[in-house]
């Protein structure tokens, strides 16, 4: 293997410059708006046109009226000589599982295709309060149930780099819109990898924050104990800027937590004394694509060359992680989606009595994959199964959490590929659910551990994950920035 020449900054603690393609898009647009190089209305109109014409199926609803109204307010402020905030006038996308009052929120399902949000999700409200412009409700796997954004009634989302490939999922539309620069950033949702995997597939950044760091209020629940709200963007700085706005304790979500601000000035300095680890059984097995394995090991070499220690760690096998995650997630989604019966909202199909109305409404309006997960969840929660499967799954989760705790005593950062295989073609995985579940092998463990994990668009062909202990978002973003420099 050829050894690359060590960049000069690696020998010092000095702040180093970001690569030009990694500059904050938010900062760039902010400067253009303030300098009156562009108007917010023109910027928003241009993006709305692109979204409407897009060839990727990344859009469920374009929010024309809302966006142009908000843009006009920003322009008025600038013309009056008033100061604007960093996010004011910045166009963003919203995965179609978040409530935004008065907009359609379908979860890419037939059941809710005409459902209008009665209120606004906390994370989205914080962005609106900061002046960001909501542009689009984005296509995704129905109720977050999928890893390719093909399980949607709006048509499969196509990859931004190669349209014959899947976009990844479930936040596929969000990743594509960011990659195509239809939005500056998007808010996705990650339960078992739904931000990280599409970010990797479309070569952008995607952060699954520590569980609870961002309020889940107004997010349609999939699996409540691992559901997280996070940003997708083209630079690490933009991820940090958005996180600082949407984070925080919220009385409407009792699992939300207070957190410290991410200091963006720190992100560009070399991380000192960081101990790096990786899970050797993720790499030393037959399931990983040899190309991804080689690329990942090469990245580890570059880190060692830069003077960091890299430790191989023992961890659970992929089968156990995937089975534990899906068992618990299915149980939780079966419970969360039981309220969707067409009584108070949604597409009701009338039957001859109440029970039949429920059954027909749900069988006709849930997709095959959603039905599979609901049925699986009800199976594990039912008498005769709960002890042998559900409760045992909970015990395994405790073991996984304990293993993470012990690992993060030894290292500060864990690196892993995002996926074991390259990006599949459209149509390849939808009809093979078990293969689809196994493709989440490297993402679901960190969800069970409720740990912050960032996907970076380099390191392997589907990206690399940088994970830290709970609430260590700043550490992982800083290390990711260093990693970008050594690519």
């Amino acid at each position, binding site marked *: 293997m050829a050894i690359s020449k060590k960049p000069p900054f690696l020998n010092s603690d000095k702040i180093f410059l970001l690569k030009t393609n990694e500059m904050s898009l938010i900062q760039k647009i902010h400067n253009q708006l303030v300098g009156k190089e562009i108007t917010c209305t023109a910027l928003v109109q241009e993006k709305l046109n692109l979204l409407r014409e897009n060839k990727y199926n990344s859009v469920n609803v374009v929010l024309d009226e809302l966006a142009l109204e908000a843009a006009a307010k920003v322009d008025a402020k600038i013309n009056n000589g008033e100061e604007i905030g960093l996010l004011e006038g910045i166009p963003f996308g919203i995965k179609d599982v978040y409530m935004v*009052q*008065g907009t359609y929120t379908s979860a890419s399902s037939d059941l809710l295709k005409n*459902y*209008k*949000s*009665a*209120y606004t999700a906390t994370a989205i409200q914080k962005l609106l309060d900061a002046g960001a412009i909501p542009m689009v409700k984005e296509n995704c796997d129905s109720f977050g149930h999928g890893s390719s954004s093909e399980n949607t009634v709006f048509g499969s989302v196509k990859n931004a780099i190669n349209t014959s490939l899947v976009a990844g999922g479930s936040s596929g539309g969000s990743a594509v819109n960011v990659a195509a620069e239809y939005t500056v950033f998007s808010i996705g949702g990650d339960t078992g990898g739904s931000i990280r995997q599409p970010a990797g597939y479309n070569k952008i950044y995607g952060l699954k924050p520590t569980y609870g760091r961002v309020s889940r209020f107004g997010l349609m629940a999939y699996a409540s104990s691992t559901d997280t709200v996070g940003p997708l963007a083209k630079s690490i700085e933009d991820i940090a800027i958005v996180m600082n706005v949407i984070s925080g304790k919220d*009385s409407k979500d*009792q*699992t939300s937590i207070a957190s410290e601000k991410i200091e963006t000035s720190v992100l560009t300095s070399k991380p000192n004394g960081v101990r790096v680890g990786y899970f050797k059984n993720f790499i030393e097995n037959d399931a990983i694509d040899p190309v991804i394995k080689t690329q990942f090991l090469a990245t580890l070499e570059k880190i060692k060359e830069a003077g960091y220690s890299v430790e191989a760690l023992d961890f659970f096998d992929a*089968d*156990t992680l*995937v*089975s534990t995650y*899906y*068992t618990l997630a*299915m149980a939780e989604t*079966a419970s969360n989606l039981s309220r969707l*019966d*067409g*009584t*108070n*909202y949604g*597409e*009701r199909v*009338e039957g001859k*009595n*109440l029970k*039949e*109305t*429920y*059954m*027909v409404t*749900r*069988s006709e309006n*849930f997709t095959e994959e959603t*039905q*599979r*997960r*609901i*049925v*699986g969840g*009800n*199976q*594990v929660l039912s*008498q*005769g199964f709960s002890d042998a*499967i559900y409760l*045992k*799954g909970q*015990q*395994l989760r*405790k*073991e996984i959490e*304990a*293993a993470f705790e012990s690992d993060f005593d030894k290292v500060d950062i864990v690196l892993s590929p995002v996926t074991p295989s390259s990006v599949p073609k459209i149509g390849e995985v939808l009809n093979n*659910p*078990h293969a689809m*579940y196994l493709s989440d092998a490297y993402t679901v463990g960190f969800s069970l551990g*409720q740990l912050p994990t960032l996907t970076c668009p380099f390191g392997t062909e589907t990206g690399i994950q940088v994970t830290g202990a709970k609430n260590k978002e700043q550490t992982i973003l800083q290390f990711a920035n260093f990693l970008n420099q050594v690519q």
Partner: protein
Amino acid sequence: MSKIMPVDLLSSIKGATSSKAVDQLFEVIKNAEIKQDASNKNTYNAVSIEDLRADVVENSSEITKQIIKENFPNQKNGYLVVSKVIEG
């Protein structure tokens, strides 16, 4: 009569059946070995009683109420229509 309820009734989904792909996941869990020491560790999230939000009713805005009514699937003569619950 079997004590196990069929999955279509359990899930309120007409014609639902169990899936081989999902059963494969359950088999892994059934065969997994549990280490007692780790499973006794309490790593769950917990909210302290002092931290619970006040148990008070918050009135929704007029627009919220209006959208909730708009979302109702079936309305007739100003009434919200639900399926027949008690059969004669």
